[in-house]
Every structure is written in C-alpha cells, then in structure tokens.
C-alpha cells in the first residue's frame, strides 16, 4: 500500500484514502467541436503509460476531497513529488541512470 503526500493536507496518508484517476496534464480541448475524430480519440484514450516517471492524478477522496497531481516512478512505485491541480509539473532533476 502506497503512502501518499497530499499537497492540500500536507500529510502522508495511506493509499486507501485515495483514488488514482489516471494520467495528468491531459487537457480537454478548449473547443471540442473543432477537433477531428482522431484528435478526440487521442484525448479520450491515448496514454503515455511510461515505464519510469509518470505524471498522474489522484483524488484524496476519503480526505480533503481534492484532486491533485503526482510524479511517480512506475518501476519502484515511489513518488517523486505531488503538487496541486493547476500547477505545472515541477522541473525535475533528470532521472538518475541506474
């Protein structure tokens, strides 16, 4: 079970309090009607699914109720950082080579 730092609560809580809601920074096209089927399909379904660092969203559903973002390593499952919704992903030191 992961331990997650909620950037709103500023405390580390058990994963049980959270819900993962998928990839972060996928913005809804501002004018959907001008998009092509391919673009809309991309928005709906295409995901980076990286092996390594992922930008993802979590909901502190059984806590403060806030959605927030996280950078996590999908190999070790360790969080690099968490940050509030609307904030840009923080500049990250490049991934250390093993």
């Amino acid at each position: 079970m992961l331990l997650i730092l909620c950037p709103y609560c500023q405390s580390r809580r058990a994963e049980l309090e959270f819900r993962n809601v998928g990839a972060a920074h996928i913005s809804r096209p501002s004018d959907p009607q001008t998009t092509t089927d391919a673009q809309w399909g991309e928005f709906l379904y295409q995901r980076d699914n990286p092996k390594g660092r992922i930008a993802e969203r979590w909901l502190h559903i059984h806590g403060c109720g806030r959605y927030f973002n996280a950078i996590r390593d999908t190999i070790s499952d360790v969080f690099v950082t968490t940050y509030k919704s609307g904030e840009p992903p923080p500049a990250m030191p490049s991934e250390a080579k093993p």
Partner: protein
Amino acid sequence: MPDSATMLTNAPPLARFVLRADAETTIKAGAVYGLDLPLTINQGASKGERGKPGARVALKLGPDEFWLIVPEAEGAGVRALLDTALAGCVCALVDVSHRQVGFVLSGPDAATLLSSGCPLDFDLRAFPLGMATRSVFDKIEFMVWRMAQDVFRIEVARSFGPYFEAMIAEARHDLV
C-alpha cells in the same frame, strides 16, 4: 469479550452545515458563528464544553470546506445568522444535519479500537489534540476528531452507522 473502560456512545441529534468558502468569507462566518473557523486544514475548533457534543464546533476538512456542528436546537438560528451574514458572498452553505451520525469513542483503548480499521497514526505526535480529518475505517469513510488524548468524535454517513458500531464491537474482542 475483554472488559474495557472504552465506550462508544452516540452523539445526540445535531445540526450540521457544510460551508464552502474562501478565507475572507470564513472570517465573516466565524464572526457570526461565535467561533473562529480553523485556518489550517484538518483542524477542529470548538466552543463550549470541550469534548462534549453540546459545544459549537467548526472543523476544517478541506482547503475551503468547513463543517459547522451545533446542538440541534440551535440549528435554525445558526443557519439564519449565517445566511444573513453571508448574503452576497460567494460561498455555499448546505444543511447536512441528518446526513451523518456522530459518535464519541472515549477511554484508554480508543486509539487501539480505531486502529483496527483506520490506517492513520493515532500517536499524539502524529494526531495531536484538535486534529480532525476524514479517513477510512475498514470499508467506510469516517471523520475523526481528537478532542482529548483518548476521546474521539466520529462522524459517519447515516447508513454506515450500524456498520461502524458493529466493527468497533468486533474490535473489542481483540483488546487482549
């Protein structure tokens, strides 16, 4: 079942409101409510008898989310006061008096019983007096507020009340 001086009691009927508001409105609300609303998240404040559900209570459970809890009889009055004071403010005040039920868990094994279902650390350093937060208790969500070292106020959604009571009763078997 082992004897324990720890008791789970039902809180009396209460009036409860959810207030969603920014800092400025919060201050206004505090002024008429007669109790400053907590500034930091996951904090509870109360006026009146500490530890007694009769007191006027304000809990900050989200960045802009407050629970205001008062004895049932004071509910209408508080609502009217707030409605007047907050008229024109961009905020939301919703009556949730009956949405949830309250409990008081008190006694030396209170934290142990909570730990049977809740992953929070109830050590005083990690969960000091006055801290209030939502979390999970086994398969339900609950709100737990520490009023004294071994006194906790708990709120759960109305239909989850029996489950919570039953799980605490189960956990008592484990006070060995």
